[in-house]
């Protein structure tokens, strides 16, 4: 049965996509939180340079040497970017935009010159072909397992291990690098380690999804997770879950529509982001607008309470503290005045005695909280 699973192309494609997504979103979470997620853009392009250099030296297009080479290239990219912006002559965003195209260009030209006939061309590197991952298999424990699955599993485990081992350090280095440094946690080293893993993941993933879609897996699931939760640990879990779901649904849709599988998986991460953006429990658009409405309504109730309180003991009470007065004196439209009044009655801030609106004890406390905040504090003390 296990053999059948590993022999099923569809299952292998979904599995590879899910592994790419999990590995990428694990490291991506920290990049997004640090505000340096575009480094994944830079890294995934400049590994083209690393791949061709390693190929020229060792004639290997995949495997551990390539992954190590890519890790070094990624670190080199970030190092060059930071050196360039440390000169103070170029802003950090421009530095990113200068370094990776240059490395990418050198890589492409080297491919043009030396590697015309080899199975590395910039199309493969940039676009990948997840549809063929099940063709290259290796025997492992008597099973024919696709190489992409093996390498992505290794990288996923490596990322997971790194994050588990340095969870505390990563967390602190992400949210408070100054404190991390003061406590001796070497935030820079921790961060470079993370970037090396990002690069290794990128090179293991490019066969399957290509360099640019890899960026989608690094940035989009963590961003969606960020809109769903405030907890770092949950963000990592949600990011992985979104990656798995995108891989599954993306595969089905791609097969159904006969389009690029990796592209569709990336699009599905976008759909997940859109859903989180709209329906997120606290930061979603709908939740935000509901909260605003609730606040507006609560404010109106308070305004009503203050109005009634101000005129409670005045001679003009019978004129002011009636439903009709709200329209003129508070400049509320008829329906709005009715809504607010109903709400205030509901909440027990106001009661109606004939035509007159009277504050309850709770309503009076609400008004006093605004007009005489000190008395409110005094009550508590």
């Amino acid at each position: 049965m296990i053999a059948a699973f590993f022999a099923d192309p569809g299952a292998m494609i979904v599995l590879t996509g899910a592994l790419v997504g999990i590995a990428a979103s694990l490291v991506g979470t920290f990049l997004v939180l640090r505000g340096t997620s575009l480094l994944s853009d830079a890294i995934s392009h400049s590994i083209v340079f690393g791949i061709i250099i390693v190929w020229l030296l060792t004639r290997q297009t995949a495997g551990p040497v390539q992954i190590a080479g890519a890790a070094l290239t990624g670190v080199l990219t970030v190092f060059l970017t930071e050196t360039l912006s440390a000169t103070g002559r170029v802003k950090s965003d421009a530095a990113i935009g200068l370094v990776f195209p240059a490395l990418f260009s050198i890589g492409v030209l080297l491919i043009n010159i030396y590697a015309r006939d080899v199975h590395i061309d910039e199309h493969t590197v940039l676009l990948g072909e997840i549809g063929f991952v099940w063709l290259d298999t290796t025997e492992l424990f008597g099973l024919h397992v696709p190489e992409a699955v093996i390498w992505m599993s290794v990288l996923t485990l490596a990322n997971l291990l790194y994050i588990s081992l340095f969870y505390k350090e990563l967390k602190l280095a992400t949210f408070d690098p100054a404190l991390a440094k003061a406590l001796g946690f070497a935030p820079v080293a921790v961060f470079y380690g993370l970037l090396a893993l990002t690069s290794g993941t990128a090179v293991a993933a490019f066969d399957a999804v290509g360099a640019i879609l890899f960026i989608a897996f690094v940035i989009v699931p963590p961003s969606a997770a960020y809109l769903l939760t405030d907890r770092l640990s949950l963000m990592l879990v949600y990011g992985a879950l979104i990656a798995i779901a995108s891989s599954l649904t993306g595969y089905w849709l791609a097969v159904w529509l006969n389009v690029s599988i990796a592209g569709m998986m990336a699009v599905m991460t976008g759909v997940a982001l859109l859903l989180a953006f709209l329906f997120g429990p606290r930061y979603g658009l709908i939740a935000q607008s509901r909260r605003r409405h609730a606040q507006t309504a609560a404010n109106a109730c308070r305004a009503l309470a203050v109005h009634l309180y101000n005129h409670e003991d005045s001679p003009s009470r019978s004129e002011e503290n009636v439903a009709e007065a709200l329209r003129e004196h508070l400049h509320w439209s008829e329906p709005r005045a009715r809504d607010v009044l109903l709400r205030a009655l509901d909440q027990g801030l106001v009661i109606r005695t004939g035509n007159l609106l009277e504050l309850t004890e709770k309503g009076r406390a609400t008004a006093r909280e605004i007009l005489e905040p000190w008395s409110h504090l005094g009550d508590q003390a």
Partner: protein
Amino acid sequence: MTMLAFLSDFTIQNVMAGAALLGIVSGVLGSFAVLRKQSLLGDTLSHAALPGICIGFLIAGVRDLPVLLAGALVTGAVAALLMVALTRTTRLKTDAGLGIALSLSFAVGIVLLTHIQATGGAGHGGLESFLFGQAAAILRSDIYVMAAIGAVALALVMAFWKEFKLVSFDPDYARTLGLPVLALDVTITVTIALAVVIGLQMVGVVLMAAMVVAPAAAARQWSNRLGTMVALAALFGMASGLFGALVSATARGLSTGPLIVLAASAIVLVSLAIAPGRGMVWEWLQRLKDRRALPSRRVLSTLYRLAAEHGNPAYPAEQTMLDAYHGTSTARGLERLKARGLVARAAHAPEFTPHWVLTPSGITEAEALLGHPNEDENQ
């Protein structure tokens, strides 16, 4: 092939005209992107062009350049809007917004591209060339389209020069003057998108980012004036465009886009190194000079303070004492000062060890160095 025959070759003329156009327009617009810290906006806009090109193809049914580029412009604008919407309404930062817009629009582009390939149509062959650019495939009619778009972009920059300048350097002030800052932001973004669209055929979506950043970043090193910077960026962009086009036309098999980008990157490196005033070579030389001058300056100020302390402008200080005070040999520094006529050797009987006094010009120099005239010292 002689140079003349080479240059009169029709294809090569096309490629060179296209590359020069691209360089000029992206240099000019890139200047605004770089100054506004939106360097990577070009990257997002160019990746977002891919779905637009595909949609344009699906609508037109053939590889009709104006329609493809119009599509690219529209999806670029949509991606920019998505970026703004995400960063304004959620807590996602600009980098994530750019990355999301970039990668998702590219993903949509890949899906559409494979859809076009799957549903057939012989015309699809031209679309993939937009990924990496294919300068040799550029037609004369394409050049006219690019020139028209470039003219629109440059005309927009000229028409709104003052406004663009103000919005780029001081948006808050622009707002207080009652300028429509949001509308101007949008206009600048659309104009950058126009520049990106021009380069798609030439260098492709992947490397267009560099064409927005590199010429402008290089030009920034040479001037603090926007006008000069923009002109230089256009020049640098054109030069790298021409270089890349020429080399890829002569050396068979080298892609045009990477060559153009590398030429632009080389210009950046040279500018960083030797641009007057900002160049790193100058700074490095100055630092070297300072480091060499530092010991003698320290000796000079010590001599001055000793003289002031003793109320004797001609106070003879013993060299070994100076050595001990500085914790290192002061012989070289003293010789250097002596060569400049700032100190003089003095005898101080009955001792035989060398002593040094300040000359009048040495006193003036030390006062200038310490930044206060003698009177302050006495007060």
